[in-house]
């Protein structure tokens, strides 16, 4: 069992660079689109105030965690995630989608490599 697991753990834990960051890029993309969805539905009056505040705070915290987990924070995707975190809580959905869309493009190009 140990013989099987050790190489897997090493593989999972020691990689660096865009490939290692792919899961964080994907998470940040998803969080960005979700934040946009929350703000869009909030603007349409479909959500409650407590829910909107909690979701925004939670999404922003998760984005912060994702940004701090990057192995290459000074990369294009690192900048994009930081720009997303810097958006105000009630940012327009289109703006949030624009950041998330750029992350999606980066994610797709890394996945096709």
């Amino acid at each position: 069992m140990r013989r099987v697991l050790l190489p897997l753990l090493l593989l999972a834990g020691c990689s660096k660079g865009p490939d290692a960051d792919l899961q964080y890029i994907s998470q940040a993309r998803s969080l960005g689109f979700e934040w946009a969805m929350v703000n869009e539905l909030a603007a349409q009056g479909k959500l409650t105030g407590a829910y909107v505040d909690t979701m925004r705070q939670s999404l922003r915290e998760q984005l912060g965690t994702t940004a701090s987990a990057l192995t290459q924070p000074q990369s294009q995707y690192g900048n994009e995630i930081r720009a997303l975190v810097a958006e105000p809580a009630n940012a327009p959905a289109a703006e949030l989608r624009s950041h998330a869309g750029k992350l999606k493009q980066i994610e797709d190009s890394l996945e096709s490599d």
Partner: protein
Amino acid sequence: MNPIELTLGIMTAVGGFVDISQVVFAALAGSVFGYSLIWVFALSTVGIIVYGEMSGRVAAVAKQPVFNLIRHRLGLKLGFITLAASVLSTLITCAAEIGGLGLLLRYLTGAPYLLMATLSAAALMACIWVLPFKWIERIFGLLGLLMLVFVFALTAIDPPWEKIAAGFLPQVPSGLSSKQLLNFSYFAVAIFSAVMFPYETYFYSSGGIEEEWGPKDLPTNRVTAIVGMALGSLLSIAMLASAAQLFGPAGVGPQIPGSVALQTAIPFGPVGLVLALLGILFAVAGAAIETCMANAYSIAQFFGWIWGRHKKPWEAPRFTIAWVALLLLSLAIVLTGVDPMSLVQYAIVFSILVLPLTYLPLMLLADDKKYMGRYVNGRLAKVLGWLFFVLIVLMAVAALPLFVITSGGQG
């Protein structure tokens, strides 16, 4: 048969299927892989119906709850290892449920998470202490049915029913890269594990003994297992299908229970949102009680203590101390600040490792004519039981490597 008698099955299933892990997993699975994992829910539902019915039948006929069987059939040493692994996995699950309750109350009220988690644990303790077993199952089973709002929401968004129907056929989506294929496999294993969480059978069979089931209750047991588990499966599949329709195309991969409630807000607005949050809240509260009690049942049955909620707390003192301590320990885990969603991942992997050791003794006893007499496994139960046992063993072998390689489905 009085329909209210189904509440044990409904609570077991709603708390077992639609616990905090399943809520997030079903939605994430739908968002990432569309409708192609529906068949895993359907398949594992048949599995949990087979073992649920079997555990209820053994409880009714041989008056043996699952952990009695484990100790007698596996021996003290292997039985103890099973107990330790099961208690650990169920404890982590219970902590995740309490954390989930804290999160859900925060979405509903905006109050601080840890305060809400603490109040939730206190409320659960009061419920278990004060309410008779029948009322616990009725309250949490029936209020968990608020989650039917997810089924209505799915109908309201007019999804592609033909694609949902096609999702019931076993399949692997075409055109996946090897990385995506590994992720798909991890999701399949994790869904299978989460649907077949062993605590469901510990709770269900112990509940049957609490309610003093006998052979005359076997038809109720069969209907309860089938209807309850099928209902839980329906709710999970509705969440998966809504996510495939609403989240996947929008690029959203929901990671927290609050995201899932958006599915009902889209068609029904704030009313749908609140109903969904309340439904998840009661289902998760049911799961927290289920996991806490299942652990106390397991420990008491293994060591031969007097147990049961039908007794006054002081008539079964070690059992009472066990469930109180387990609930407090789960709360302590939450108060460390660990993310409940991470706990869920570990609970799922631990659980699948315990599954073979849980279901093998159950199969052996249900197959034993000496104990079961004319209520021994029929041909269908035998074939399905062993078929699912082989599947469980295969999944148990694959679970840990897949968890590591895919970083818990994130890779």
